[in-house]
């Protein structure tokens, strides 16, 4: 605590000042919008990016695959994932979602990732309020397909941008008081459950689509349809996503080196493992390992 002394008249006055704490400071916005997912968007892209993102399900049905973990959201629920997560989404038609992506240096949010958060009425209102404000400030970029994100509208008062960021921080801090649940891996679809179990059992192997079909006693066409419907990507991508998730866990929790991890996950070489990891998460395994260590 900083203390200051002022002399006023003959009286000494001591002022105690409490320095402001920044437990969570959003440094930049990438996007903030509400979107209705129609059939054409159901086949989503699998991607990873260097910023935080959350998805809130307003209505409809939505499954999100994050690093091999499949989260099925009910309306009113939210999932937050950290930078460099490999994710894809699968939604029924007429699904409405709110999406926000942003950058922050603080590690606090890691506590909230990997869980499904259920928002109360007041928090849902706060979210609607600031997404509506966000739409007054940011507008979707349409043009180059290699560039994503949003542009600032003309004549935006910078004070409004800070105001929006303050509101986002308040919302994120309030998320710590919500009820959380981990993803339940009891898939309603039995066939998908069989497929999922098969892949998890063979995480050490290098499987082709044919191998998977043989193992699950089904055709490639059927399997692809099923997998896309459940998690928004094909069976091989799903398998890779499982491996990425397993690799991240191993880096976090075990003392295995990259060669051992590559071997344990059935990669022909550590080079191939590194290349794949980087292409899916946007980060090399060693950079990832460093970022995880920094968190501790």
């Amino acid at each position: 605590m900083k203390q200051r002394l002022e002399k006023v008249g003959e009286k000494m006055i001591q002022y105690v000042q409490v320095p402001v704490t920044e437990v969570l400071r959003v440094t930049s916005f990438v996007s903030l919008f509400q979107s209705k997912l129609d059939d054409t968007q159901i086949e989503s892209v699998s991607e990873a990016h260097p910023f935080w993102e959350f998805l809130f399900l307003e209505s409809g049905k939505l499954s999100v695959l994050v690093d091999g973990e499949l989260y099925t959201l009910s309306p009113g629920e939210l999932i937050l994932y950290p930078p460099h997560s490999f994710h894809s989404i699968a939604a029924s038609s007429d699904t409405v979602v709110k999406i926000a992506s942003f950058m922050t240096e603080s590690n606090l949010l890691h506590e909230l990732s990997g869980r499904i958060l259920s928002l109360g009425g007041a928090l849902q209102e706060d979210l609607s309020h600031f997404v509506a404000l966000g739409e007054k400030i940011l507008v979707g970029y349409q043009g180059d397909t290699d560039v994503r994100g949003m542009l600032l509208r003309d004549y935006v008062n910078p004070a409004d941008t800070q105001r929006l960021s303050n509101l986002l921080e308040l919302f994120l801090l309030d998320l710590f008081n919500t009820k959380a649940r981990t993803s339940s891996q009891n898939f309603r679809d039995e066939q998908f459950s069989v497929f999922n179990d098969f892949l998890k059992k063979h995480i050490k192997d290098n499987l082709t689509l044919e191998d998977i079909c043989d193992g699950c006693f089904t055709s490639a066409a059927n399997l692809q349809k099923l997998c896309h419907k459940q998690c928004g990507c094909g069976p091989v991508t799903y398998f890779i996503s499982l491996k990425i998730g397993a690799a991240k866990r191993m880096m976090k929790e075990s003392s295995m080196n990259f060669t051992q991890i590559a071997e344990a996950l059935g990669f022909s070489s550590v080079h191939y493992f590194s290349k794949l990891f980087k292409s899916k998460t946007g980060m090399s395994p060693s950079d990832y390992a460093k970022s995880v260590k920094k968190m501790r």
Partner: protein
Amino acid sequence: MIAHINHTIPNIIRLNSICNIHEFSIHDTITESRKEAHDFWEFLYLKTGRLNVLVDGELYTLSAGDLILYPPYAFHSVAMSQGAVAMCVTFSTDSVRLHQLTGRILLLTPEAQQSLLNINNLKCTLFADVKGSSLVKDFTLRGMNQTQAFDSADFQKLTNLLEIFLIDLCKAEQRSQNDHLQSQEFAALNAYLKKNLNRSLSLEEISAEYGVAIPQLQKFCREQCGCGPITYFISLKIGVAKQMIKEGTFTFTEIAEALGFSSVHYFSRLFKSKTGMSPSEYEATLRKGR
């Protein structure tokens, strides 16, 4: 490889530290209040009653709902209270934007008053006022102490809310400055039209003589009085016509002429369409009233 656009958050109003947030009532019998100056910002918001505040020799009288902000090193004191309950907030910031809010009384909207209440409630869970205002003689300690329930995440929430409150205050002030500007513009238009009541003016003529483009003219006229310039001009004429009829020294023909109508018939028709009665019916109602 996909590139993502991102926007760095600007720091328009960022607080460095908070010194105090507290609510207190000021006794009516106050004789000599504390006079002080310090190197941080302070604002005083009056919840109820009336209060005089002296800031650098300027006297401000606050009513319930008013706020006054003074910059660092402003020499200030409170005086003359009538049942005043005030909230005082002190903080330090490097933002220069706040200077535009100083030196005048700001009336808070109900929403802004509510958010101050929320800020004060949150503060009460995190901090307690420093007790023991005179530890030793002539030595005073002011500020807040953390309570056991202090939580740095909640403290950030408090700060964020306070920053939003100040941003909103700046925006409201900008808006009211715009309003003021527009009403000055409108006052000038009003004076011009009143000087030309004896003429029949078209929108084009008003625009050309007054020197403002038609769309702009229509916009600010509509904002101020909810109708276009011609309708406003006619309503001015009707008002004057009624005044002249009341005085009873002019015939309708004279009135029509004085107000630039091409004929008494046109004047009568327009009068009836706007007021619902003809000039003679209007005159009759006045006689009945006497």
